[in-house]
């Protein structure tokens, strides 16, 4: 039979996501989006033009072979599709959910020029979630006798560990917390990224032979010299994340009831404060919650506040919605669930009520001026525009600084922000130490952190195995 040429379903609308109704989902931590069915995936795969020069791939920081995996979906070769993605991206279930697709793969998809791009993220997460059904455990090369230590079990550490384990290295991941995943576990909420998925990925690594040592704070419990000289490790990959939160430095910021998002989200996600008193960790349940920021972290905090029972959640941002760095899907979901967005304002001070907790926030109106170094228009305060709003919980989500452990772990050069200096392969100034993820780039994305882990793994492999020769 002559091969039938593939004919894309031109003009078909983008297959809608299967989202839970906003008014129901906003009150508990269940997933917001239940994902594509196989039929949805095939319909969506049929929209792809199978471009000769796939622009979508240029948008993906790790170069996932998008038209190739989509073709396998059309052929209903689910295992093949998953394997195609996994060759470039170890965590499709995660990236499909959290990548800012509109700025990356989908942002470049040719279909987006006239209509809506292919839902690459949805396809990817759906395949990732099928791993138990169709996935085969990847083969590991036989042991090469080299030991690599990884500090931090966030996406960067996980990616590096997975690559190296497959190449026959003996890999140990040291993690400060009692469980793995980094921001995927303590930062991004359950309703956006179920923790079962993170657990499954970590279990997968354990099956590849990766050892996880929890409750292990590098730089305090041990340092690089000890790992090399006493424990026999040959290389070290530092993936400790960005960590330290920034503050607004305005009056009243330390009042009880004013949280930084890291604390608010860690109490909720990692420590399950929403199940207090069954779980011991408390959290303040505000009726009237105000969140400051415009990124993913701010969206997560605002939507968490709704799920903790807030009656009114306001997201205050210095610029306008158009400049918000958050994923579009998160802004959309947040608004749908009832988060109110207050644009162009900046907090001046937090004031306590009679009980000592925060009760009022004074703000100032802003207007947009000339673009700044980031290319976004700079917010400028408007004179005499102060106003006050009531609030009983405030959450600040205005970014993070360098993790202070970087310098305690190993003797590596830092830049003036305290981030680790590396070359494009993740090599630091110390010949046996590599680094990647947020501790090198500053707060960035999951896929960039993973990409860095993968690159460093390739370089570690080359370096250690050539030493042998």
């Amino acid at each position, binding site marked *: 039979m002559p091969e039938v040429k593939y004919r894309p379903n031109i003009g078909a609308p983008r297959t809608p996501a299967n989202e839970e109704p906003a008014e129901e989902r906003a009150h508990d931590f269940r997933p917001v989006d239940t994902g594509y069915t196989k039929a949805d995936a095939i319909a969506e795969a049929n929209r792809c033009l199978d471009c000769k020069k796939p622009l979508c791939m240029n948008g993906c920081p790790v170069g996932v072979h998008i038209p190739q995996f989509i073709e396998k979906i059309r052929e209903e070769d689910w295992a093949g599709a998953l394997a195609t993605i996994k060759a470039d991206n170890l965590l499709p279930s995660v990236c499909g959910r959290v990548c800012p697709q509109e700025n990356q793969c989908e942002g470049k998809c040719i279909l987006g020029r006239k209509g809506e791009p292919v839902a690459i993220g949805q396809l990817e997460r759906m395949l990732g979630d099928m791993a138990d059904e169709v996935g085969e455990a990847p083969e590991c090369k036989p042991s090469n006798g080299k030991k690599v230590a990884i500090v931090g079990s966030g996406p960067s550490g996980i990616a590096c560990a997975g690559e190296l384990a497959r190449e026959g290295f003996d890999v140990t991941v040291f993690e400060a917390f009692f469980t793995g995943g980094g921001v995927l576990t303590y930062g991004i909420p359950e309703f956006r990224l179920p923790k079962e998925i993170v657990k499954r990925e970590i279990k997968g690594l354990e099956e590849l032979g990766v050892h996880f040592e929890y409750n292990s704070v590098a730089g305090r419990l*041990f340092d690089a010299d000890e790992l090399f000289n006493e424990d026999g490790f040959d290389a070290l990959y530092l993936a400790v994340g960005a960590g330290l939160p920034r503050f607004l430095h305005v009056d009243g910021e*330390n009042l*009880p009831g004013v*949280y930084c998002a890291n604390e608010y989200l860690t*109490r909720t996600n990692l420590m399950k404060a929403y199940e207090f*008193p069954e779980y011991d960790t408390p959290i303040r349940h505000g009726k009237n919650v105000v969140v400051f920021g415009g990124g993913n972290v701010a969206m997560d905090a605002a939507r968490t506040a709704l799920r903790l029972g807030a009656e009114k959640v306001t997201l205050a941002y210095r610029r306008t919605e158009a400049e918000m760095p958050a994923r579009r899907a998160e802004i959309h979901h947040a608004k749908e669930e009832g988060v109110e967005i207050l644009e162009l304002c900046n907090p001046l001070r937090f004031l306590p009520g009679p009980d000592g907790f925060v009760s009022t926030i004074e703000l100032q109106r802003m207007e947009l001026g000339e673009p700044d170094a980031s290319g976004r228009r700079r917010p400028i305060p408007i004179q005499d525009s102060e106003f006050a709003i009531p609030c009983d919980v405030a959450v600040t989500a205005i970014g993070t600084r360098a993790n202070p452990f970087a310098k305690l772990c190993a003797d590596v050069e830092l830049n003036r922000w305290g981030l680790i200096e590396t070359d494009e392969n993740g090599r630091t100034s110390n010949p046996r130490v590599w680094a990647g993820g947020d501790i090198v780039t500053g707060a960035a994305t999951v896929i960039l952190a993973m990409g860095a882990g993968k690159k460093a793994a390739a370089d570690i492999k080359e370096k250690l195995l050539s030493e042998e020769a």
Partner: protein
Amino acid sequence: MFKILKKTQFSEKVFEFRVHAPRMAKHAHAGQFLMVRINETGERVPFTFANWNPEEGWIEFIFMVVGKTTQCLSELNEGDEIQDITGPLGCPTEIEGDRVAVVGGGVGLAIAYPVARTLCEQGKKVSVIMGARNKDLLILFEQFASLPLENLFITTDDGSMGEKGVVTLPLRRLCETDSIDSCFCVGPVPMMKFSTLTCREFKIPIVASLNPIMVDGTGMCGCCRVEVGGETKFACVDGPDFDASLVDWDDLAHRQASYKAEEAASIKHHEEDCACQK
């Protein structure tokens, strides 16, 4: 899992646990702390290293029962396991001067004791001032008394043991008689605040070990932030020791009280339906 090798009861509400933790034993220093999560549903709470032995591979901490988590801990026994212990965290204590006053109040005595012991081991001349509301709350008296101290003063608010009054009475005397070069204090905020004022009067440097509420203990969450010299510091990574003369005490006191209502609800829930023995 961390196995409890030995449990010692010092008084009705004060216990010491010896726990198997070889790597931690090798790296612990006086003034550093660990964080405990008893079980799956537990919170993370900090305790100071009281003692450690790298040869035998154990560490010890002393705790006073004040709420749900410490209550649950006190119900564990030798041979039981604690799910998670993370440490060492924080910076080791560094005290200048040869003659040091160590001032401890309430639960702070559990933190003051290993510091006093270490200073003695370093050959310093140590004077300890112990303070509490009453005799029953004055913990670790025998432990302090067995150290080779220059002086040991006791004050209680009600006079049920030692001198009636507050720790600044003996502290002032030490300052007035030029008997100390520096001071370390840990305890309730008012006690630390007034010790600081007393030392400042005599230009004696004073370090305070601050104990704000913590969650991660690794500088990530910002819960333990304290204002020191007009800067926001994280007690878990920048401290817990700070130059006491620069600390914003009211700020610390407010933040420590953030969860009073929840803490009361938690212990009540525990008493009604003990969930910690899972």
